[in-house]
């Protein structure tokens, strides 16, 4: 076998294994870190919690006067698995990781008041992106949840 043919085959093999690895990595089960930031939004004062700086532009969309971070919690959710987050006011948020593909994370999210489901939603997030779930009343204002996902 000629030297050039050997090199060609070596190069082909490397290309194949790299491509196969990348495809496997794309489709392999992922663990996704889901972060819930629980925020109290109200019109009682003009306070803006400095810990929410990264979310300020998004929160200003809601047009409340004050925003305060009540709780921040992250959990690793395995593929097809779920995680439960306690939310102030006896509520809870359950997050299922449905899919991770093309840098998009599909989550099923359930907000519960006690054992009673309040809202179910399925949402597809860009990796490291977030969405806002708000509305439940709490302590003279409303709860705003920032739900973000980071596939590792």
């Amino acid at each position, binding site marked *: 076998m000629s030297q050039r043919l050997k*090199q060609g085959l070596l190069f082909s093999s490397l290309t194949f294994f790299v491509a196969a690895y990348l495809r496997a990595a794309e489709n392999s089960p992922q663990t996704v870190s889901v972060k819930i930031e629980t925020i109290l939004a109200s019109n009682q004062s003009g306070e803006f919690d400095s810990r929410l700086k990264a979310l300020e532009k998004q929160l200003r969309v809601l047009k409340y006067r004050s925003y305060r971070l009540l709780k921040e919690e992250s959990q690793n959710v395995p593929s097809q698995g779920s995680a439960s987050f306690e939310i102030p006011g006896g509520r809870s948020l359950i997050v299922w990781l449905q899919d991770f593909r093309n840098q998009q994370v599909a989550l099923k999210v359930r907000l519960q008041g006690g054992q009673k489901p309040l*809202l179910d939603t399925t949402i597809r997030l860009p990796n490291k992106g977030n969405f806002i779930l708000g509305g439940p009343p709490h302590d003279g204002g409303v709860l705003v949840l920032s739900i973000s996902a980071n596939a590792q």
Partner: protein
Amino acid sequence: MKNCDSTRESLGAWLDGELDRAESEAVRVHLEGCVACKEERRQLEKLQAALKSVLDSEASRIAFPPFWSSVQQRITEKSAWREDLVDWLRSVFSGPRIAWAIPAVILLLLGVLSGDSLVSGFRNFGQRNNFASVESIDAYGRNVALLREDETKTTVIWLYQNQEGEDESTTETRPSF
């Protein structure tokens, strides 16, 4: 049996011992029976002898030792990894087309096999690093609003609910977006 033309074409190689056994034997047999080719051979041998005598007389004047030492040095010299890499890349790029055809076919196959990913990738291209997309919402009979705000790429799901969890008439829980 060789003819004169083909014998004369092979004569130089035959004299230098470069022909294979059968070819060499065919030339020898032809030369034994052909006066013209035998004369051609004699002329060629005479020319080679003349050239050799000239080269031999000139060779003594050429300084070969420095030349050979330089050649030997270049052979034994360990080349830098960059040179090795450049040599390897050059050999790959100038290699037979099959060297590129194989990875091209592999990539094509992978592309076809992962067609669904590519299609969904193109479909989601506009959404990448952009908006979160809501696929379904069930608020169990409560009012719910969905807001997508372009400037901050924000997706908001707003559930209307009062302290008791059922009455949606209070304005305190309503955002003003």
